[in-house]
């Protein structure tokens, strides 16, 4: 849903002819046909990554009270359809923006950055089609990942034989804890980048912005990678 600026999103209301906001007319309150705007614009926010959760929630409730299909049950079918589309857009936008990671990923995508697909579905899809999945091991994790994969393989073998090595299980448990801590720490690091990004939105150079984008992308990839590792460890331990 790329780039329509807030200015372009406003035009005249179909019902009263006055100026309107993106979703409903500021003069007569009628719901408007949806225009393609990004989620930040929909809420009237700048493309900044620090979002006040309580402001977002309040806006969500306020807009829900104006756009929800329940309010248009007696309106004509055209208004009903617009309210359905507008409120689905509202819900989609709220779901994306309130989650810090989804919000960051969404902004990067708006900025034209391609994220690596690291979902489990993508993995299975790649496995099924025989494609090589785009997934780079973060360099600082290379050695650890190598070691961990060896241990996981050993555990799986043992389980298959019906054996049980408490030492190995304990070792993997510790490893998991370490990964989880790292995962958490990455989030704090990300927040630091948010501040940098937000400072550059209004005044920074394109070059400076690109640098932060790349840092965030790299961080998200590492984070996803660790998440997948934790999942693998969990699966091996639980199976």
């Amino acid at each position, binding site marked *: 849903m790329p780039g329509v600026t807030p200015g372009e999103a406003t035009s005249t209301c179909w019902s009263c002819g006055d100026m309107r906001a993106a979703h409903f007319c500021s003069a007569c309150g009628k719901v408007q046909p949806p225009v393609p705007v990004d989620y930040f614009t929909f809420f009237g926010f700048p493309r900044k990554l620090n979002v006040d959760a309580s402001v977002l929630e309040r806006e969500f409730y306020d807009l829900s*009270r104006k756009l*929800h299909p*329940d309010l248009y049950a007696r309106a004509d079918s055209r208004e009903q359809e617009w309210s359905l589309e507008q409120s689905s857009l509202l*819900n989609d936008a709220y779901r994306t923006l309130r989650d810090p990671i989804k919000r960051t990923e969404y902004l990067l995508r708006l900025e034209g950055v391609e994220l690596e697909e690291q979902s489990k*579905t993508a993995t299975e899809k790649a*496995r099924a089609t025989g494609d090589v999945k785009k997934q780079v091991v973060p360099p600082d994790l290379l050695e650890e990942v190598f070691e961990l994969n060896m241990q996981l393989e050993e555990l799986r073998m043992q389980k298959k034989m019906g054996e049980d090595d408490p030492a190995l299980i304990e070792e993997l448990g510790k490893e998991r804890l370490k990964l989880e801590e790292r995962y958490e720490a990455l989030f704090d690091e990300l927040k630091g980048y948010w501040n940098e990004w937000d400072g550059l939105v209004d005044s920074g150079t394109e070059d400076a912005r690109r640098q932060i984008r790349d840092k965030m992308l790299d961080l998200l990839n590492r984070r996803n990678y660790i998440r997948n590792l934790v999942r693998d460890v969990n699966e091996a331990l639980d199976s």
Partner: protein
Amino acid sequence: MTSDRIVGIDLGTTNSLVAFMQGEIPVVIPGEDGSNLVPSVVALDERDQIIVGNAARKYLIETPERSVYSIKRLMGRGVEDIQEELKFFPFRLAEDLEPGEVLRIKLGRQTFTPPEVSAFILRQLKRNAERFFNAPVTKAVITVPAYFNDAQRQATKDAGRIAGLEVLRLVNEPTAASLAYGLDKQQNGIIAVYDLGGGTFDISILRLHDGIFEVIATNGDTHLGGDDIDNLLITIALDDIRGDLGLDVSRNGEAVATIRKAVIEAKIALSSQPSTKLDIELPGGKRYLRETTREQFELLIQPIIDRTVAPCKQALRDARLKPEQIGEVVLVGGSTRIPKVRALVEEMFQRKPHTDLNPDEVVALGAAVQANILGGGSEATENMLLLDVTPLSLGIEVAGGVTDKIILRNSTIPASATQYYTTQIDGQANVAIHVLQGERELAKDCRSLARFDLKGIPPMTAGMPRIEVKFLIDANGILHVSAREQRSGKEAEIEVQPSYGLTDEQVESMILDSFDYAEEDFRRRQVIEARREAETIMAALEKGKKSPAWGQLASDEKKQIAKLEKALIQVKSEDDYAAIRKAIDALNQGTMRLAELMMDSAVSTALKGKTMDEADMGEGPEAPHPVAKAEFK
């Protein structure tokens, strides 16, 4: 005004109810027999007439092959889904069912789809409401289990249409219950609704915030409820009878129906008593006697009620909440009367559940609240808004038979997702999309919702077309799909093959079929109209009696009017529309002179220098002539 009256309907597995907002309070509309609950039982009587509710119950035992209960279990399901149910329920499927066809079950020699059977129940509720309002009812909010999938929802909506109801909204049952609860409590906080009914289980966690009812997470099992307890008890009784009495009655419909009735009574008794006795007369004069204690009963049902634990835990996990963060747990559904169920909930959520609400009625009352909101609201509901979620993730099948989830479960609805498709070979004109619902990784483990064929893609080199497909789940939890080829800007044509549902054409033809039954509805409508007309003329007459014109009538004129009035009152309470009409006409004729006199006196009063207003022209002079025809939409 009248045509805008929207009722709330709880179409339950065991019982169904219809309710509406009377002023600021939701109330259940009783049936002709005075009962609030209409048992969800449908039977064909000796003259092949459809019988619904309490009156149909006796047929369950007398002619089980001509009656059906718990039809909700079959809504939106295919023959391969219901093998388990067939073991325990006496559903008689039509013999000529084709694979992939919508189920049809037999009542006598006729067959009906589950939406048609449900429509009979809805029609009865509609009639009850019309009788209550003395006016036609055409719009309704109907509740469904929160965990119902798209096909089950669609089937419920179809049932409404077949019954002649415009279904303005499907509302999730636990959410409806929360509306009734919230209307009463007016409190902010987090609540959980634990809804164990006759055939379905739902758990919903909601945040109540200044009139907004926001569902955070929902989970459940659409095939778990009191029915399962009954079936277990029936199986045990049948085993006992075989073992102790050497009698196999499992194929005897009448005997099984008798046992079912007895074990249900025992189940209910054990909620208030420490023990109960079963005493069942069997074919051939033998008796099955057995005493059961509550302790034994609780041991038996433990595995069934334990199945509610996992959905509750999942819902809490999805909501990212711990049990102690739940402010109140509200119990809904008849099966929550069982003390052991209450104990289980108390242990799980570490608090005593809220049991003040009538678990049978609260869902219907909540549906009435939502109906009121959709109708424009009232003082009580002015600030109320329901934000519900989709219970199951929506996905599409991608290469390798994998499900790619595009709308995750517990997303607030309406919700949408956009996907882009292209072609694999040059000039390809069609693309097939397989839509799934469920949480599993592989397409074959998810529920197939429908297959969509994008057609009429303009001829282009492979990979060139860019087809934007928009998936939208509406506020009813029902999926809509639209597609557009972006390079040509052409709306792509979509052909939908619902995996388990009626096509629009089928529903249309069922609506036509239902006119066979609707003839009776039409007659009822005429009676209702005539009654309203009778009331109007009688009200006018009352007014006339108080006017000075009344004094100018001769005494035998008055006597004649009284006689005609009495005749109208007499026929008004009967169901003969023609007779009511005739009596109205007669009274109209008989009061002709009274009307003229009233008109004269009004005019002469005016001449004495009074304004028309003071002369109370009101409704008096213009009535009883002409009587306006009651207007119906």
